[in-house]
């Protein structure tokens, strides 16, 4: 019973939401899927096409006042077709709303950098590049940030060994 209600509420949150509606109107093709955690208004996830991420972000910042990029990170799904997901957490200091954007990427694909929209994306994108190997187009300074420049591999990928004994023995030159 509770589950039913939750499901209903969830649907309400997703469909009745003004933001989602207007975004659907503005970008009819780019929005792929909208999900939410239970009935939480702050946990709406909008999955978008990766090519239009920059336009959507610019629009969200300009017209919906999402002036703060709280977080940007990547997730690795080795079993899926789109192996990488870039997740953007946006927050509006004026309206106190939160929204999560997601863009899927295939192996080797790149996504447009949002550094032109939010300056803070600079280091976040460098981190995603460093730890997951996600490429960002038009990033001003895309290089490793946490790991040394000559590090091999991207630790947060699921196939990267967790323990040192699982790793390949180091080659001595």
């Amino acid at each position, binding site marked *: 019973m509770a589950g039913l209600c939750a499901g209903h509420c969830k649907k309400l949150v997703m469909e009745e939401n003004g933001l989602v509606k207007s975004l659907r109107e503005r970008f009819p093709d780019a929005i792929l899927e909208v999900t939410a955690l239970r009935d939480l208004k702050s946990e709406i996830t909008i999955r978008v096409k990766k090519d239009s991420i920059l336009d959507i972000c610019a629009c969200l910042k300009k017209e919906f006042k999402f002036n703060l990029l709280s977080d940007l990170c990547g997730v690795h799904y080795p079993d899926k077709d789109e192996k990488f997901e870039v997740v953007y957490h946006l927050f509006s200091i004026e309206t106190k709303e*939160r929204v999560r954007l997601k863009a899927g990427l295939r192996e080797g694909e790149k996504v447009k950098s949002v550094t032109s929209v939010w300056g803070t994306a600079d280091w976040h994108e460098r981190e995603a590049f460093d730890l997951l190997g996600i490429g960002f187009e038009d990033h001003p300074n895309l290089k490793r940030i946490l790991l040394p420049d000559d590090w091999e591999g991207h630790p947060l990928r699921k196939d990267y060994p967790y323990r040192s004994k699982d790793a390949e023995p180091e080659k001595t030159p």
Partner: protein
Amino acid sequence: MEEKGFGTEELIVNMGPQHPSTHGVLRLLLTLDGEKVVDCEVIIGYLHRGVEKLAENRDYKQNIILTDRLDYLASMTNNLAYVQAVEKLMDVKVPERAEYIRVTVAELQRIASHLVWLGTHAMDIGAMTVFLYCFREREEILNLFEMLCGARLTYNYMRIGGVSCDLPDDFAGKAYKFVEKFPKLIDEYEVLLTKNRIWLDRTVGVGVISGEDGIDLGLSGPNIRGSGVEWDVRKAEPYSIYDRFNFQIPVGEKGDTYDRYLVRMEEMRQSNNIVKQALEQLPEGEIMAKVPRIIKPPKGEVYHSIEAPKGELGFYIVSDGTSTSPYRLKIRPPSFVNLESFKKMIKGHLVADVIAIIGTLDIVLGEVDR
């Protein structure tokens, strides 16, 4: 560049990773023209331990101790952010008493963290005595925490669904005593600094950042409030039971080092106030909600952020619904993001301002590098 008479060249100074006032292992590559900073590159990662990778291979409960070691000066708030994120994902209702205890310790932790900031910031600028005064009071808070959970730095106190143990009998009394006398001690620090001519000369107009630029660069916490943006997660999205307390958010005007200093000083007073209210209202009851022994949240993802002493501390957790460890745990550390605006703040300042600005940003490298 055209050369007239003697040729001049810029001096490249490597500040850190071992340097007394980079607050850890931060490394700055400064390009100096005389004493003026022309360019600066921030190099981090010397303390990278791969917390996010570790978290993917440990279960939800075990990850609490990893969060202790992020911002090691404010372990309680790190615990809080993490357990609340998991609770949000699992839809757990935490008992009243546990919520009050959490708020009490989180605000005490904020005071302790700000005390370390004040002490080190003042010491960087040369006022060494303030440092020892601050640590005197921090010691008392640490003693309280030691009573509570036996640890003085990495507490591992919060649990998913509540807190690990109830308050000892004399905790409330001792904490209340501290809270009563603390405002007077803040006045003592202020006597040494607030109206001090040298302190004013060193902080007013140094490291100015406008509210707009601050938001663009993701600044949060006292740093953005110093620039006049009234945004505090405790008020904007009241988590836990913060909507029940009466407190103000201090904001600055100009966004310089001095305003940020004033904001943090006032914040200590407000936190003190919250602790006082929480101790007065502390209800009896359970300290743990009924949570399963093995934590296995449903499939889904959650982002939860709280107002840590340094700014917005967020946890993004992806659960695949089948595993007892998170599929992906992303930490949004306030220090990491705040440090990004260092480059903008330092341009055109002098070498001595570098340390003033590092101090005012209040970074902890354990959190920056994770």
